[in-house]
């Protein structure tokens, strides 16, 4: 039984309408970024595209330093989290003990504690340690923030590796390190990659710790964009240009990796 033509046309129209509606704010932002400030407040579609806003945002010397901060802390936080998580997930997946299950659930529940609950102590600790407004501080926070999710995701990927393979490796005399490095990592590379990807996206978009713990020196793009919220900063075109540049890399990233992300995000519970 085939769907009628009418039904199919309705589906297509609804589908596209919903998609365009959801995308509209992003599309409008990109559109506005090519306007002059005068055109930007007019909400009209008739305008001559210009790159002036991009030029002006980039000309502010500090834009690039914010962008650099974003890259450094996201990559740093992700790498650090993976370094801790790979051995942890390995031991939990292949040498489980009676407490493994409890530990895993406990790690997940730490993720549910609101960061505000510990904001004050962290702020004071950072102030004492001189880590406020430093990249190292943010890298540490991001790594720890994502550690539970990263361990969980790696764990679900590792569970799918047959123990026999590692067993065989061990027979051939592989030590723990080379077992992980030469056998497990190559086998689970897609999983590790999508884990890293998700962690990268979370770090890049993180706005709670960066707003509270950095001011100028180590502030990433999220903070830079937030500074546009002040009333005197009401420059729609420049705001749009800066936002577009901040969002574009991760958006394209997300488009290409959406399939792997689903698996990662649901801890393999939905395939």
């Amino acid at each position, binding site marked *: 039984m085939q769907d009628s033509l009418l039904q199919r046309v309705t589906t297509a129209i609804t589908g596209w309408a919903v998609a365009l509606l959801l995308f509209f704010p992003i599309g409008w932002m990109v559109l506005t970024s090519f306007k002059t400030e005068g055109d930007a407040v007019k909400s009209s579609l008739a305008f001559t595209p210009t790159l002036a806003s991009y030029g002006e945002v980039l000309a502010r010397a500090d834009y690039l330093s914010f962008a650099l901060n974003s890259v450094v802390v996201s990559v740093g936080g992700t790498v650090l989290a993976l370094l*801790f998580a790979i051995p942890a997930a390995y031991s939990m997946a292949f040498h489980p003990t009676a407490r493994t299950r409890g530990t895993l659930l406990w790690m997940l529940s730490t993720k549910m504690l609101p960061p505000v609950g510990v904001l004050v102590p962290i702020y004071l600790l950072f102030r004492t340690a001189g880590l406020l407004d430093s990249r190292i501080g943010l890298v540490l926070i991001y790594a720890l923030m994502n550690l539970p999710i990263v361990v969980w995701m790696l764990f679900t990927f590792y569970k799918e590796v047959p123990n026999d393979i590692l067993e065989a490796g061990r027979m051939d005399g592989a030590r723990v390190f080379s077992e992980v490095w030469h056998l497990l990592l190559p086998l689970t590379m897609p999983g590790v990659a999508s884990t890293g990807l998700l962690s990268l996206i979370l770090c890049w978009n993180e706005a709670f710790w960066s707003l509270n713990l950095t001011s100028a020196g180590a502030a990433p793009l999220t903070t830079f964009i937030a500074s546009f919220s002040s009333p005197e900063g009401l420059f729609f075109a420049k705001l749009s240009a800066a936002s577009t540049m901040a969002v574009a890399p991760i958006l394209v990233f997300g488009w290409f990796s959406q399939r792997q992300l689903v698996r990662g995000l649901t801890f393999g519970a939905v395939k």
Partner: protein
Amino acid sequence: MPSVIVLLAWMIVPLVMTVWFSFQYYNLVNPEAAGFAGLDNYEFLVTDPDFWAALTNTVILLGSVLVITVGFGTLLAVLFDQPFPGRNIARLLAISPFFVMPTVSALVWKNLLMHPIYGVLSVAMRAVGLEPVDWFAQYPLASVIAIVSWEWLPFALLILLTAVQSLDHEQREAARMDGAGAIAQFFFLTLPHLSRAIGVVVMIETIFLLTVFAEIFVTTSGGPGNASTNLAFLIYARALLQYDIGGASAGGVVAIVLANIVAFFLVRSIARRLEV
């Protein structure tokens, strides 16, 4: 398990400090008033109308966003499961908001869409002869809910769509043979199939929604008054704007207790499905 130890230290040390501070008089601008406060901070907190407003707002925000995203997410997942021309591109567009950083989405909504004079919505409303609305002044909490829902709907869609696609087509065919209409199919076949995925969506969204911060920080700053202040923002305001560490810590403890209640139920429902 080095990471477990690190994580343990990471969670325990600040937690203990929060609890400790919550029993202290500790104000950064008034260092004389220090010492043990007993339950004063808590007493001050529960008698503070701001606190109850923040608590209510937190729950309303969580509840509404969950209902909106899971409800529409399910419908959209079924929609995007149907074949139509350009479906893959439409799907990419639809999930895009998830990848946008919260400060950007908040600002774009605030300035480009909901601005009372220049926003697209006001322009559109004027065009059809309606009086434009100053969204963040008149409906602050609803506006924040709209933004947060827009951010999380794609996430629900992405997860639920994957689940819908794994639905057995023969099963669906069989249901259709038996004369089940589209609506019956949805309720008796698709929805039960999705229950697990919906559980996952609810869990992950709850984790993030309890701590919504940037969207409020950028748009309403919790106002007007306390109309859109949630717990996360209240604690931030107490600690870093009013320098009242003791009071903020007491709020933090309450937030943690609240999260633990939610977490307890969620983790239990997941534990049942976990195969270790």
